């Protein structure tokens, strides 16, 4: 028996309808004592066929993805076709071990060898695990881990939670909604959904038990998930969502409140592919240009020559506008082969990442700054550079010197560590602007790991403690005549965007898909409405009370179904 209605937290508005597809990540280990029925030859043939199927699937996915992914997946396919592995599997099956357990044990033997070697090879352990799980799934008749390769129709992706790795091949044209059992408003699922403009419900108890293929109607505003809904209900929801999109699109132009208080609305951009959607959504510039895409999946850091063309493409697309570039934000949570952490880190989120990493690898920073300075020349974009993970004024000053030495005059820092927010006035003295990263600021203020699904309730940027730190930062910026933007995904929440403006934030940057909603929300409220909403939220005792209190001061949100 399944309920016909589940409820979670709506984190990306809109309506989506399609069959449920379960994202499977964990394949259970076959029992240690699993034996086959006695026909070793037939069992071996099953094992060989499963491994070949896995290899062919990996190779085909690589061909579809192209580029670096093709090489990576082709190498994985070679592992599935490995002759030594096949020999070991045959040996175990000869001894009576069931095919799935034989495959599991054979891969595990290599896994341990690679893990013990450390360094580059330790990173291949995940590849070996992935192939092992795929082969075991094939043998046990389980759904393969990962996303459906060629879905017959657009589907609703249902998962415990989504990790960045799950989403590499995600095609927004085939996914109509996300539903996750875990996760909060700042979880990766929520961030990804808003960036893609896909309706999403997170923290949805019971989602993991939805049978595959069940038709789902997902309301990303209310957080309601309907199982096998009547077709009238689906038509109503889809029509409502279309009307709402038209209503929002009718508001255009530069970001401003109803009484003309100007709030530039900027786009978060993660690479050249994000330029066109940002321009189409009317972005007035780029508030967060993430540069990690140039550095991922590489053995060596890119040279300045390799980097500058990619930067120039974005600068030229935003001629005459501001483009705020965040230098590489790498570290133990986003490890890169050429930036190894100096020591093992038991707690990566609190480890050597962001600007801390650059203190060890100043040459990587120098190459990036040189590329940015060269790319900026000859374009009319107002290029500004900022550093992630700054805790102290001393770090901000060090970064500022490096940027100015490279010929980049406008230097800012991200405010994502409570220490930086508390001492924002000190940092303002050595920097030109602030940009508040609400995802990390929330994680560090509440001491709640962004990746820990069980802590979803704490990962809420509405928490009054987070709002207090935003208020402190904005006040310090105003006192020093500095700009203070918000570039975390919280800025994509129309109600929270109004609250930030009320707290004194001067610009908002978000995924392109969120710009129409935030533009419409600001245009319907005065700056005094925003200030009252901010005061009401800070006076509340909990995140949910803050949200309710702020929304009571922002009545037009309900008219816009936001």
């Amino acid at each position, binding site marked *: 028996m399944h309920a016909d209605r589940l409820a979670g937290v709506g984190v990306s508005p809109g309506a989506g309808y399609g069959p449920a597809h379960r994202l499977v990540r964990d394949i259970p280990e076959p029992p240690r004592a699993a034996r086959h029925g006695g026909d070793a030859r037939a069992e071996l043939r099953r094992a060989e066929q499963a491994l070949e199927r896995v290899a062919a699937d990996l190779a085909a996915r690589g061909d579809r993805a192209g580029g670096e992914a093709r*090489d990576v997946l*082709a*190498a994985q396919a*070679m*592992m599935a076709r*490995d*002759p*030594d*592995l096949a020999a070991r599997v045959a040996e175990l099956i000869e001894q009576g071990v069931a095919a799935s357990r034989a495959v599991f044990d054979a891969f595990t033997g*290599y896994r341990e*060898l*690679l893990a013990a*070697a450390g360094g*580059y*090879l330790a990173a*291949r352990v995940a590849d*070996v695990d992935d192939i092992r799980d795929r082969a075991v799934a094939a043998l046990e008749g389980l759904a393969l881990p990962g996303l459906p390769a060629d879905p017959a129709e657009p589907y609703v992706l249902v998962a415990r939670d989504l990790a960045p790795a799950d989403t590499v091949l995600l095609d927004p044209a085939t996914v109509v909604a996300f539903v996750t059992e875990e996760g909060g408003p700042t979880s990766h699922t929520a961030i990804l959904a808003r960036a893609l403009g896909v309706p999403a419900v997170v923290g949805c108890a019971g989602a993991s038990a939805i049978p595959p293929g069940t038709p789902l109607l997902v309301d990303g505003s209310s957080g309601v998930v309907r199982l096998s809904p009547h077709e009238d209900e689906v038509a109503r929801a889809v029509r409502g969502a279309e009307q709402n999109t038209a209503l929002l699109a009718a508001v255009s132009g530069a970001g401003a409140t109803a009484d003309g208080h100007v709030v530039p609305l900027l786009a978060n951009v993660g690479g050249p592919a994000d330029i066109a959607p940002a321009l189409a959504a009317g972005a007035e510039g780029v508030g967060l240009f993430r540069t990690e895409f140039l550095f991922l999946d590489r*053995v*060596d850091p890119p040279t300045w020559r390799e980097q500058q063309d990619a930067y120039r493409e974005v600068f030229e697309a935003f001629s005459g506008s501001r483009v705020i570039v965040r230098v590489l934000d790498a570290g133990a949570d986003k490890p890169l082969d050429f930036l190894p952490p100096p020591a093992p880190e038991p707690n990566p989120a609190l480890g050597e990442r962001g600007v801390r990493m650059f203190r060890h690898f100043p040459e990587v920073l120098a190459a990036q700054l040189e590329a940015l300075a060269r790319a900026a020349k000859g374009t009319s974009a107002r290029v500004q550079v900022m550093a992630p993970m700054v805790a102290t004024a001393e770090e901000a000053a060090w970064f500022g010197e490096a940027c100015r030495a490279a010929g980049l005059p406008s230097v800012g820092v991200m405010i994502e560590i409570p220490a930086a927010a508390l001492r924002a006035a000190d940092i303002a003295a050595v920097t030109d602007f602030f940009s508040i990263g609400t995802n990390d600021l929330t994680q560090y203020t509440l001491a709640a790991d962004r990746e820990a699904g069980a802590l979803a309730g704490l990962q809420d940027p509405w928490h009054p403690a987070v709002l207090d730190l935003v208020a402190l930062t904005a006040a310090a910026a105003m006192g020093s005549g500095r700009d203070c933007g918000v570039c975390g995904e919280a800025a994509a929440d129309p109600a929270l965007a109004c609250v930030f403006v009320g707290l004194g934030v001067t610009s908002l940057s978000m995924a392109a898909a969120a710009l129409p909603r935030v533009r419409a929300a600001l245009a319907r409220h005065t700056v005094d409405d925003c200030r009252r909403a901010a005061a009401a939220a800070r006076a509340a005792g909990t995140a949910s009370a803050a949200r309710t209190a702020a929304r009571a001061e922002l009545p037009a949100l309900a008219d816009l179904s936001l």
Partner: protein
Amino acid sequence: MAERKVTVMSEVGLHARPAATFVQTAAQAPFDVTIAKFGVPPVNAKSILSVLALDVRQGETIVISADADGADEFLDRLAAIASAP
């Protein structure tokens, strides 16, 4: 028994793309090919998992061996791959 002794020059060692190319080439040989590192028993050069687990790094010397007619030409090709910068 024919053999080639070469120093691996690639910055990433005999990992990643160099390892894949090496194993793909060895796999085309109609006879057995082994690869050994000093102090470690030889392993099957046609096995990507075994070659990776050998963990050959930049500057290390390996011995590639085969015992068959026509082995020389194959060993030359493998030696060239392993010693490419």
